[in-house]
């Protein structure tokens, strides 16, 4: 994606979020705090939700290049990641431990567990082979090839976290086998996720 397209995507973020939140009111609230989009010109476009996404202006979207940041480190490590969302989520922010694989869709899309990073600087390691991770300070990082991929990861992180928290009243969620979880993630990445394009 080039700079102009990334700016346009961020300017339309509020409409995107409104559209994708329809029907998911029971899943828990997902607030996007910051967004970073990798750009062809090098580095990434960055914006934070300081005055609210509906009122964001183009001049508030910054081009970060050649810097040592959490976002740049993640982009350097994850070559297929083009969008990073930093979020604060109703249930994910309550989780203060690693979430084992407790749902098939979690295992497929997020990875074999949701790790808890001790600081935002450690998020790249926490996201190894994963698409969402929580930070001890109550934020989360969700990544994807596209904005939609990253946001679905955030929604699924919230669902997984809500299931993990609420299942405590039922004696706790029972994890599935980590090898089976890994197998499902591979199946999703290598086969199922490509069906949208292939199965037409």
């Amino acid at each position, binding site marked *: 994606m080039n700079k102009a397209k990334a700016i346009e995507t961020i300017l339309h973020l509020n409409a995107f979020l409104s559209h994708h939140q329809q029907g998911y009111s*029971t899943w828990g609230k997902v607030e996007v705090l910051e967004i970073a989009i990798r750009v062809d010109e090098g580095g990434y476009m960055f914006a934070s939700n300081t005055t609210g996404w509906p009122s964001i202006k183009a001049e508030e979207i910054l081009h970060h290049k050649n810097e040592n940041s959490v976002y740049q480190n993640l982009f350097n490590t994850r070559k297929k990641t083009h969008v990073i969302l930093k979020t604060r989520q109703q249930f994910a922010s309550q989780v203060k431990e690693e979430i084992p694989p407790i749902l098939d869709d979690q295992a497929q899309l997020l990875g074999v567990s949701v790790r808890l990073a001790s600081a935002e600087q450690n998020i790249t390691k926490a996201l190894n082979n994963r698409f969402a991770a929580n930070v001890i300070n109550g934020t989360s990082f969700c990544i994807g090839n596209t904005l939609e991929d990253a946001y679905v990861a955030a929604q699924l992180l919230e*669902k997984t976290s*809500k299931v993990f928290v*609420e299942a405590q009243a*039922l004696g706790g969620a*029972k994890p*599935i086998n980590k090898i089976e979880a890994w197998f499902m993630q591979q199946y999703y990445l290598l086969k199922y996720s490509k*069906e949208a394009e292939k199965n037409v």
Partner: protein
Amino acid sequence: MSISIEEIKQKVCAAGKQLLQEGLVARTWGNVSMRVNDHQMVITPSGRKYDELNPEDMVLVDIYTLKFEGKIKPSSELKLHCHVYKTRSHIQAVIHTHQMNASIVAAAQMDVEVLLPEHQQILGGKVIKAAPYALPNTKKITMATEKAIEASNAALMSNHGVVCIGTDVEGAFNVARTLELACELFIASRKKATA
């Protein structure tokens, strides 16, 4: 008056979009089918986004041979749908969801005690059972889920989701919505008991 395959495809396509709109699934997960006759059903395709689907993308499947018409592959969960139709001649629609409250109970691998009589009536029992965990799309999960439905209209699939059945597609959606409410009450009652 019988309904044409084209009309059934339109209904299944609309029901797929409804799954997404009601927050019963995310992305491409879940699936919907409707019976055509005693040996065929129409089901949503595998891995496609619901909001991009058209009626002609729905897949006609033989419930006994699992052979399908056309080049678009049916949902990978088709075995479960076929098995329900083969064993329950009165069932006309099957939906598979990953809905929130039922997922909480399914992750705890528990049966749902249905507390309200009006919910019991719609769900077809006082308890909705959870099938033991098995990998998706396997014979093991198909048989376990079908067994867990028993004489009711739904079953939980441990760590995975829910299957709901009905004499029409709206009936199956009503079962899914009622199961959400029943699971919410069940969880609340357990919270109260442990408080």
